[in-house]
């Protein structure tokens, strides 16, 4: 497969011994049971014989491909697409070169160098060349073709300990064909503070570069206290489920991010048996995180320094992001209201069902009595339907919106980072200016002994300025890329969830039809 782009020709080659098969339907009880998933299996690609000596990283060119959800377990699986395939069974090295993309945020497609240890380098002469030229667009379309699989699930919450020192431990299971992991399937146990710790590490490293860091799920003192105290009721079960699902989505977003997936801390989190206890996670409580994000946007707003033309994109984009955050908040509130009312409907239907049953038992006419008990059963079934629907309302729609409100906050942080870098550049430039003025003054005042120092200073600050200029360029490029990636994923995410939600509604309505159709003859039988 060959990609040609604006800045040069790139060749990819690999030798493939067999087509990549998608993960087949696994056994019963496998947490990754796949309903309705698809992976393209037509992954034959041509080969060519060129490779570069650039140090390339393995999985930069991946994106969140498709989320599927199983019935009620609402397990979202991420299929990572790839520009090519490289499987451990291959005998040849897969190499891919790509030149830098333009700053329009085009995808940087970079491939691996020597991948897994069981590959051997095959000389060019053996490879069958077959060059296919593709444009950037075609490439992007094709990315769904090659896929590495990385499925993550968070399951089996377990309470460890008692009383106020108790905590919930979750099983984090990974199933992957990515060679950078030691195994194909593995699992570890993690607790909530571990997830917060992961966020902190990621954030410290990547946010300065302008990456959008997915925010972790929120702390909840009330929720956790109930669990600790051992309240075995439905509200604490609900809380645990809500948290479990949120942790799962969080991890899936993290690994869907090309740079984050490569972070050794992420890998360690998924793989390592024992993780050192994360401290200092206080700052990352819900309100704490929010405060941090709000401070960020305040700082950005206070920025009065006008930047150059390209900033129009950033300025208007930031405005868009802020607007959208507000609108999604309101949408979330509306959906939240729906969830509550649906739950109320559920309760009221159950209550009504019972009284109808009682009415039926008192009724003297036997046919009517029977019909009323049947009606009570119908209402009972409807209560279950409403409950399931409320579950879908919450987990498919409400949580999606809540996640995106927080994600948009993270996007704002991203812009803030860029501003910080800009500020640093400005300050350095003004310092440089001052040093130059100082030098000029010294020349004028004819103090040669201090001149050397002044020259040294100028050199120091000149190199700083150029460093910061490069940083700013890089951050600008990254932020743009990140935003575009984010928007694409957001559109995809929303579409998938909307479809899933409508399907849940459809399912409910189907069942409703069946319930009432079963009752109709009973009603007609009244004599």
């Amino acid at each position, binding site marked *: 497969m060959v990609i040609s782009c604006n800045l040069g020709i790139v060749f990819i080659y690999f030798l493939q011994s067999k087509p990549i098969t998608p993960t087949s339907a696994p056994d019963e009880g496998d947490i990754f049971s796949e309903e309705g998933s698809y992976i393209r299996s037509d992954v034959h690609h041509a080969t060519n014989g060129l490779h570069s000596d650039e140090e390339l990283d393995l999985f930069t060119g991946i994106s969140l491909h498709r989320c599927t959800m199983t019935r009620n377990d609402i397990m979202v699986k991420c299929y990572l697409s790839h520009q090519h395939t490289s499987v451990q069974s291959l005998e040849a090295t897969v190499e891919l070169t790509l030149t830098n993309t333009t700053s329009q945020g085009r995808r940087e497609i970079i491939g691996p160098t020597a991948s897994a240890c069981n590959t051997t380098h095959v000389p060019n002469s053996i490879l069958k060349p077959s060059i296919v030229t593709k444009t950037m667009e075609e490439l992007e379309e094709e990315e769904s073709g090659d896929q590495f699989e990385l499925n993550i699930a968070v399951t089996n919450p377990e309470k460890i300990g008692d009383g106020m020192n108790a905590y919930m431990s979750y099983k984090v299971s990974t199933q992957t064909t990515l060679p950078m992991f030691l195994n194909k399937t593995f699992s570890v146990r993690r607790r909530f503070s571990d997830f917060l710790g992961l966020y902190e590490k990621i954030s410290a490293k990547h946010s300065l570069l302008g990456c959008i860091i997915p925010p972790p799920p929120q702390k909840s003192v009330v929720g956790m206290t109930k669990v600790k105290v051992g309240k075995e009721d439905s509200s604490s079960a609900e809380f645990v489920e809500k948290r479990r699902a949120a942790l799962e989505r969080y991890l899936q977003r993290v690994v869907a991010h090309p740079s984050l997936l490569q972070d050794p801390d992420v890998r360690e989190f998924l793989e390592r048996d024992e993780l050192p206890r994360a401290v200092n996670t206080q700052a990352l409580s819900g309100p704490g995180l929010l405060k941090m994000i709000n401070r960020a946007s305040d700082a950005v707003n206070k920025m009065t320094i006008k930047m150059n033309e390209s900033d129009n994109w950033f300025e208007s984009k930031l405005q868009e992001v802020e607007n959208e955050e507000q609108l999604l908040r309101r949408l979330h509130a509306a959906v939240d209201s729906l969830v509550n009312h649906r739950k109320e409907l559920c309760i009221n239907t159950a209550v009504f069902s019972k009284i109808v049953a009682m009415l039926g038992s008192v009724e003297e006419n036997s046919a009517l009595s029977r019909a009323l008990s049947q009606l009570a059963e119908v209402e009972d079934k409807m209560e279950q339907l409403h409950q399931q629907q409320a579950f879908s309302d919450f987990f498919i729609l409400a949580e999606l919106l809540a996640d995106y409100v927080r994600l948009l906050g993270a996007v704002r942080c991203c812009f803030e980072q860029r501003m910080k870098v800009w500020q640093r550049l400005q300050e350095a430039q003004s310092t440089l200016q001052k040093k130059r003025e100082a030098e000029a003054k010294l020349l004028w005042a004819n103090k040669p002994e201090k001149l050397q120092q002044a020259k040294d200073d100028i050199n120091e600050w000149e190199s700083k300025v150029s460093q910061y200029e490069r940083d700013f360029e890089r951050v600008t490029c990254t932020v743009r890329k990140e935003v575009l990636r984010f928007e694409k994923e957001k559109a995809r995410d929303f579409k998938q969830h909307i479809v899933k939600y*409508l*399907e849940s509604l459809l399912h409910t309505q189907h069942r*409703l039809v069946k319930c009432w159709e079963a009752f109709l003859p009973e009603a007609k039988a009244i004599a």
Partner: protein
Amino acid sequence: NMTSISEDSDKEKMRSVSVDLNNDASLVIDIPDALCERDKVKFTVHTKTTLSSFQKPEFSVPRQHEDFIWLHDTIVETEEYAGFIIPPAPPKPDFEGPREKMHKLGEGESSMTKEEYAKMKQELEAEYLAVFKKTVQVHEVFLQRLSSHPMFRKDRNFQIFLEYDQDLSVRRKNAKEMFGGFFKNMVKSADEVLISGVKEVDEFFEQEKNFLLDYSIKIKDATAKAEKMTRSHKNVADDYNHISGALNNTAADNNTAFKKHLEKCAEVFEKLRKVEDRMASDQELKLTELLRYYTRDIQAAKDLLYRRARALADYENSNKALDKARLKGKDVAQAEENQKQCLQKFDKLSESGKKELTSFKARRVVAFRKNLIEMTELEIKHAKNSVSLLQGSIEILKSN
């Protein structure tokens, strides 16, 4: 603000919570339309008759709720009708719900977007219409119960109500002066005690009494719970409305792919809301209203039992008085006459009471059957609409 309702195909289904009471062509009554002016409803009562007691074969008059109450009260106070189940008076039109909404709408107008305002107005209109339909139905049924009853249909006041083409309020005031506090004659609170306390000889009435006492409690409870359930259902429909609005707002600010998905979703919610609303209001009209009606009807049946129990008590008292008179040797003839009359009254009430209660049973069963079938058919229809709506939208979204 005026709203009017006229014949539509669904109204056919909404006709009566009871049996089809219009099956006797000699006197057919309906309320084809009504006007709502500032929460005062003017019903158009339309009569078609072959009876010679009426001046014309077909005519219409405007009537207010108070006129219906006047008619009901005169019938209750008519001694002759003591042995009948008096059709329950229709409840006053209750526009409290829509009024509240209208108030909220007025207050929040400045803080809402144009779309939000339009949506709330929509909701308000729907709620108004629902209350309207209910009140028309319940007033209509009241008249139809009277017209289908062999004794009530001949009632003079009933005829006046149907025919008198002037404003009834003058007559009403006179009637009130005439009857005064008669209506309060019956102390309702003594009701239950008296009925349950009566030493019942007749097996039929014993059974009826026990059944009605138990049933009335349960059906009242069922009505309240049905109301709560319907209320929740309507809240869900309202939420769909708000979600649709919020989705459109979010879409307005956006770029292509995202925008299209949101708009499509908004459209689905909008349509679903209509269906959900219909589901809720049809359930209310058929089931909740049925339960409400029979709660009142059962009360009317209990009132009959009460009157009979009072007659029995009077008879027993007259017996005691007769014994006393015989002992004293004074006013025996008078006491005998009194006793005879009490017995007659009691027997008459028992006889007609038995007939009334028997036909009441049958009527109740038929009414439940009719309404349960209609409700089920409507719910199936609405659910199927939802199914095809959702299927279509999912197709479109997936293909994009």
